[in-house]
């Protein structure tokens, strides 16, 4: 029996919200400001064209799909990649087979459409079914994607070291992602005490079963 999409990413920590600790000794002022900015100041798209942004959004939905979230609750990814490129924030290194980052991203998104058109009757990436979009991405990952762009810039390097990793990093830097994986998140100045295997501080994420036991037995911390 196929699972429904909303159950597909069932968290072990349904009652956990890292933001509940906002005013606790786990969050210092500077970290609150960083996370507040991440939650509230989602920047406008200034670097990508509308088509590029739509293409990238479609890619993000394949790399870290969020079918379980309403539009308003989806973790924003495109705006932060756009901001990085708009403000020219660098990574500290660039593979020699790649051009400077702005050019890399523009070329890469162009290349994805080239591959998409070559494989699927001239259709751009955004018009493909999700499974066909995955086929395009798999071709890039394996380095056998058709397209003129990929003769100048290796598709597999772009996919692995630029495109997918950037999307993944931005996704897992968001408190909603921390919630679903039960990550304790910020921990300054309090830190942790119960470091051993199976150990859990009261301010770390509870699991469903543990919760049930504790509701019976003791006050939930």
């Amino acid at each position: 029996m196929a699972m429904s999409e909303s159950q597909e990413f069932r968290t072990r920590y349904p009652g956990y919200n890292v933001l509940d600790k906002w005013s606790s000794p786990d969050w210092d002022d500077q970290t609150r400001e960083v996370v507040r900015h991440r939650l509230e100041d989602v920047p406008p798209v200034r670097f990508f064209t509308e088509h590029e942004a739509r293409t990238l959004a479609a890619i993000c939905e394949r790399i870290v799909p969020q079918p379980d979230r309403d539009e308003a609750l989806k973790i924003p990814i495109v705006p932060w990649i756009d901001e990085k490129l708009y403000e020219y924030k660098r990574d500290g290194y660039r593979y020699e087979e790649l051009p400077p980052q702005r050019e890399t991203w523009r070329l890469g998104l162009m290349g994805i459409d080239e591959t998409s058109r070559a494989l699927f009757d001239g259709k751009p990436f955004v018009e493909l079914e999700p499974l066909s979009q995955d086929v395009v991405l798999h071709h890039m990952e394996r380095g056998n994607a058709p397209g003129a762009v990929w003769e100048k810039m290796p598709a597999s390097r772009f996919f692995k070291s630029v495109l997918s990793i950037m999307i993944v990093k931005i996704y897992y830097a968001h408190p909603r992602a921390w919630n679903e994986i039960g990550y304790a998140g910020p921990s300054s100045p309090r830190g942790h005490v119960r470091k051993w295997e199976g150990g859990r501080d009261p301010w770390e994420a509870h699991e469903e079963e543990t919760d049930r036991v504790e509701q019976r037995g003791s006050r939930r911390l």
Partner: protein
Amino acid sequence: MGNELKEEWTLTAPGIHGELVPMRDLSREEVDFCIVGAGAGGGVLGAKLAEAGFSVVILDAGSHWNPVKDFVSDELESRKLFWMDERITGGDDPIELGSNNSGRGVGGSTVHYSMVAMRAHPDDFRRRTLEGEIAGAEIRDWPLTFADLEPYYEEVEEALQIAGPTRYPWGRRRKRYPQREHELNASAQVLVRGCTKLGISVAPAPIATLSAPHKDRPPCVYRGFCNYGCTTNAKSSTLVTYIPRAIRAGAEVRADSMAAQISTDERGHASGVLYFRKDSRELFRQHAKAVVVAGYAVETPRLLLNSASSLFPHGLANSSGLVGKCFMVHSGHQVFAKFHDRINQYKAPPPGGALTEHFNRTMREADFVCGYTIEVVGPHPVDFASRLATARKLWGAQLRRTMLDYNYYSGIGIVGEILPQQKNMVKLHDTERDEYGLPVPHILFGYHENDQRIIQHAIAKMKEIMEAAGGEDVWSADRTAHLLGTCRMGSDPSDSVINADCRAHDVPNLYICDGSVFPTSTAVNPSLTIQAIAARTADRLIK
């Protein structure tokens, strides 16, 4: 200190508790020493020289961090701690730079390092004698012996208050560590259990984080953000240890100052450093009687090569042609496995909870020379998900589902020896320039066959250990750590850049004092050795 002296103390610098401390202004003087880089090497050297009465300026390209205000509990935001300027990476096995291995700012890489404070071993200083000639590699004995460095290891361990086990099972007998070992975290318990089952010796790691209060610093509270800057000052980075000592002794630590060139006089002696201040294109000059380059194994050769002049057409101190050559890293491959009990690998200190040097030696039965250390790792979600994406090629629903079990994964990783090779190098890029118009570094790296064999052996052993510990879904990720070589020390001026005292063969008042001086990489974390060399160099200069 007399009040008349204090009148020159017109500057302030961040103290370690958020206060401002007075600092001398030496910008208009010809100082005894201008040190480029306030990290592991530069910090130790600067403090000792200043305490001996020399006038010292330490330049650093990045900020002077205020640990209680500037460091955040967040992976992405901590990018500011790393060297983010453009560098081009290539070769057969191009390495990751940036947040992987390159610090920026006062304290250098010790601000984000994993604090594993290991000594190299007597054999590490005479690999050429022990292993002989190996095709494709340029193994050299060090001009220093273990005995030369031993008192300095001890000195630095005391200054950093290393917390370690009562009895450390490998290497020369040693006196007790200044502080007691830290309690093992879950990931360390996993390593200990796996090793014990397999009969592999294992021990709590000696690490540069306080386990008990020391002076004005509290013990570690196990936040687990060690690689992103310590907000409580438990971590013994040079930022909170040697740098405050240097400033108190009258050194000026000049942050946001990017060295562009070492100037030389008509005799071919170093005369000072030309540098850019942040957000300015104007070139400033610091006059100095001697210059020390301590910028780590990429920026150090870059500065020397960028200092080429008519007297030194191939770069400063480069008559051997070896500046930038024999660039090394460590293989840092990691193995992760999923466990029945919750691990919560972010709790820590994840790096260095426990380690084994059981394989850190040339093993008679192996088809390679040298070896590796296995240590505990504990990536936070952004880093862990990145490993899943790049090493396991997970994306889509599969990635999100695997990440739901993040708290159940535990990881270990190696510090694997890398043999020096001429073809691995840091050179100036032909065309690319940075924001100051300086040629950017172009880094070429590829593994030697011996390196590959070490990695294969290590991955197989790590998988065995994780399985013996009860791990499932065992997988490995490739990675490198540390930046070494490019200005090796030696006694023959045609075959090395500096001598055993870190003095350039070609320029009598130029010194290099960081990871670039290593002739071979060793299979231990390099910071303690860098600091021991710096402590020794200071004593040689003071005499």
